């Protein structure tokens, strides 16, 4: 019982997630800065930001619904923290059930919904526009994201994240042709994740120069800190999910070394995310929806089609 609780709350649960989220934010900002020929933040900066936000006054505007305004950030936080329990960090995740891929995918949708709802609750022009943009964005990346997660699940015939991550490397070694659909789906997954995390080029919902901070405009102090923290943690969860589903989780190590391969792989994905962020400008919401449905969705369908064709071709 104590060990279970420690696993959930400390390692590889909440505390680890928090620490790694801080590290990932630092790495992301540092890489972004170095690629732009800047110095970048100190290692302690993300933690200092959170501490600062938590110690600041929380202002609740008169126009908002105070109850909803207060509890929304915790919903995002809880959803992200829960979804981390299903992801393999060590040899096996803290908990694993059949169909947890679907559970994680849905839990990861909650922060976006909470964001758009908080925009509506704030009831100011910037936050309402931000909230609308959040939702319209959701419809353009969510379907390709789910479809790309579906590709490896179809290959292995299971909805269990742990089984997928354990089974995928062996399958690809046995039949190298399967690298094709996985590569296509991984590409779609990474781009859709960029949209999910509201990073460039898809940071449309909190476009600074247009609508200040979008849904966050009215948030301050601790509530904003929790939002920021849950978004940082969402990045880790999203990246870990991609690693587990497409890159074989902790393969090839096991036991204590498993964490090493997990860290190496997640940092690799974080690097790709930072690279995309550096190389592009923010696109417009209509361009994003066009891109989501005209490029990403067909690409993810192509991945599934490849799997189906390979299955029918009798390679498996």
């Amino acid at each position: 019982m104590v060990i279970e609780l420690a696993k959930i709350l400390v390692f590889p649960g909440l505390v680890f997630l928090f620490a790694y989220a801080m590290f990932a934010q630092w790495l992301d900002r540092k890489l972004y800065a170095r690629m732009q020929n800047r110095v970048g933040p100190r290692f302690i900066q993300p933690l200092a930001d959170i501490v600062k936000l938590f110690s600041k006054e929380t202002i609740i505007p008169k126009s908002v619904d105070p109850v909803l305004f207060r509890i929304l950030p915790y919903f995002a936080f809880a959803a992200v923290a829960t979804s981390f329990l299903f992801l393999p960090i060590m040899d096996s995740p803290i908990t694993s059930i059949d169909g947890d891929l679907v559970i994680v995918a849905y839990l990861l949708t909650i922060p976006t919904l909470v964001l758009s709802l908080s925009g509506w609750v704030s009831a100011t022009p910037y936050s309402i526009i931000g909230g609308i943009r959040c939702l319209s964005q959701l419809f353009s990346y969510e379907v390709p994201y789910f479809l790309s997660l579906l590709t490896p699940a179809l290959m292995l015939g299971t909805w269990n994240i742990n089984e997928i991550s354990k089974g995928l490397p062996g399958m690809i070694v046995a039949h190298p042709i399967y690298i094709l659909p996985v590569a296509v789906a991984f590409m779609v997954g990474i781009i859709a994740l960029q949209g999910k995390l509201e990073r460039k080029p898809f940071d449309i919902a909190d476009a600074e120069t247009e609508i200040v901070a979008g849904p966050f405009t009215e948030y301050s102090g601790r509530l904003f800190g929790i939002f920021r923290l849950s978004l940082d943690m969402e990045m880790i969860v999203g990246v870990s999910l991609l690693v587990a589903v497409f890159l074989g989780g902790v393969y090839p190590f096991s036991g204590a070394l498993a964490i090493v391969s997990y860290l190496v792989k997640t940092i690799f994905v974080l690097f790709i995310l930072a690279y995309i962020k550096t190389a592009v400008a923010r696109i417009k919401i209509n361009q994003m929806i066009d891109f989501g449905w005209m490029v990403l969705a067909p690409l993810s369908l192509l991945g599934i089609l490849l799997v189906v064709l390979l299955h029918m071709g009798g390679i498996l």
Partner: protein
Amino acid sequence: MSERMILPIGPQHPLLKEPTHFKFTLEGEKIVDADIRLGYNHRGIEKACEERTYLQDLYMVERICGICSFVHSTNFAQATEDILKVEIPQRAKYLRVIVGELERIHSHLLWLGVAGHEIGFDTLFMLSWRDREIVQDLLEIITGNRVNYSFNTIGGVRKDLSKEEIDQTIKGLKVLEEQTKYFADVATKETTFIGRVAGVGYLPKEVALSHCAVGPTARGSGVDIDVRRDLPYAAYGEIPFNVITSDRGDVLGRTIVRVGETLEAINIVRYAIEHLPSGPITAKVPRKVQPGEAFSRYEAPRGEAVLYARANGTEKPDRIKVRAPTLANLASVRHTLLNQTVADIPIIVAAIDPCLSCTDRTSVILKQDGSPKTEEIDWAELRKRSLISKPLK
């Protein structure tokens, strides 16, 4: 969302570098009406000029703009020299061209960075501002200052260009040229950048003409105007250069014009340095200026800047009037904003390279219901309020 919604932007907003106010009426994300209010940054510089001597005013008008400071000081010096009927030495004319064009390079690189930032392309912002440091350093080497150069004086310039300074400038220009070509490449080829600027903020040629747009805003819509060529001042009459225009009319057109002008400015500086005549750099001028009036025009990086000066025979001018290029361009902004989306607001506003505190010549106080509070005051009262010795209540 067929309902109409009001989106206020400013006076404080991350989009704006200086205070101004926009009121947008939206239908969903589409802008159906736009209202621009100026007057948050009136500093009374024209009035302050009347309180000071000509030489002091030279440094006063330099502080109208933090970016194109040389524009205003040259304009003032030219107008005063015109009243005095003084011909400045040839070398001074060339030196003014060199500093003026270096300033154009710095202003356009700054704009490119701001434009990148407005559309969320922070990498372009960081890199173009990094390379802008080169030209800032060159300006510091030549004039001694990075922003307000204090390089002009009535009757010429204050500092000569030495051999080492010329060598350093030539070296710096080489790096600048390479980097500007790279930025030109990014601005015309990077997909997400093109997606944000092509077809956005369209300003037809007729509208540009009827709304009196100037500078890159007009040239980006195919209006072929440039004071440097049409009414040469300083040494521009002797220097060959091309006026860059684009027929696109959108923000991309204005970007192409600005990047092209940066490359052209590098060539002008090179030519001016190679053909720098020898001789003195100042002409002797009297302290008191005989009665008369003059009008000076200057092609600033943002467009044509105009300065009118009237002298009354004393040490202080009787009247100074400055029209900054932003005022001429602001009228076209409303036209370009209509029927665009919220996401286009930052880049369309930034596309004229607004310099609002240079523009403001008045303050308007709005009442609670938003209507302007008007009050009639006579000349004596206005003068009393403008006196620097008596602070405003």
